């Protein structure tokens, strides 16, 4: 299974995934209050909790994005991205089930489409992250 074509394809997936999360982070970092507002719409966290998550999450996306693009420590970065996407999918599905009209805030305020589209996008990112984890796990030295 050391097919060089597969190897290069996974490398492209890794770089694209990293670039997407870099882009998402750069959009959110300058406007913490707006992202906190998007999180508040889920009615899960208390007032300060919304701000705290809005302060930290974009930076986690930024660091993971950098690691995925460069390929250095890509496995923990891909694992964190996979976990984040799992969390986003559950949160969006729960909000939909409760009938809340949420905007995920994934790429800044008001540019994210309906929740169902966001869930589909997150599923795609999750699959991309899993592919990177699979490839990186095979490279781990025994």
């Amino acid at each position, binding site marked *: 299974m050391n097919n060089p074509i597969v190897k290069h394809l996974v490398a492209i997936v890794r770089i694209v995934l990293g670039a997407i999360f870099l882009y998402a982070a750069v959009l959110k970092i300058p406007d913490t*209050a707006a992202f906190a*507002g998007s999180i508040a719409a889920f009615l899960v966290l208390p007032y*300060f909790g919304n*701000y705290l998550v809005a*302060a930290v999450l974009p930076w986690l996306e930024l660091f993971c994005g950098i690691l995925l693009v460069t390929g250095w420590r890509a*496995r923990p970065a891909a694992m964190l991205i996979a976990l984040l996407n799992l969390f986003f999918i559950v949160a969006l599905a729960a909000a939909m089930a409760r009938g809340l009209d949420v905007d995920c805030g994934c790429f800044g305020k008001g540019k994210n489409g309906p929740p169902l589209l966001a869930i589909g996008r997150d599923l795609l990112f999750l699959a991309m992250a899993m592919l990177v984890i699979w490839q990186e796990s095979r490279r781990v030295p025994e």
Partner: protein
Amino acid sequence: MLVKRADIIRLCAEMAVLVALAFAVGVGWNHRVLLNAWSGRATATAPAGVQQVAIPLPLGLMQVKELFDKREAVMIDARDRNSFSGGHIKGAMAMPLSEAETLIPEFSGRVPKKAMLVIYCNGYACEDSVELGKKLISAGYSSVYYFDGGLPAWRDAGYPLGKR
């Protein structure tokens, strides 16, 4: 099996380092906003010289209806008194932005600082609810939200209105 276990531990450790780094940088970068949100202070100057304000957070129609049904929030109408008399969210209290300076001290005496406040005005283009929210945050209220659909969204949904 030992190799696998060591590998999992290393992976978890690397993930923990990444999360800790993001937490440290995120909290450091946003420390003024976080301090404002924590203490209820209204304004602070960002390191870059950009004015940042502790602002109330927006809520949508469904969230406001949920809070209304559970009676978990104090509804505040930021419009002028004539508009309030013409129709308002049932049970809301009038606090026109123009009278905020005189009404907030009296309000503070009656409503505890931990109460959840939902402020509204005439909908998305109306800034009065956000401005009133900033003043209430300055007065020490820590759980302040604004309903960005305002009265039009509430009325159009057929939800309960009060008139007087």
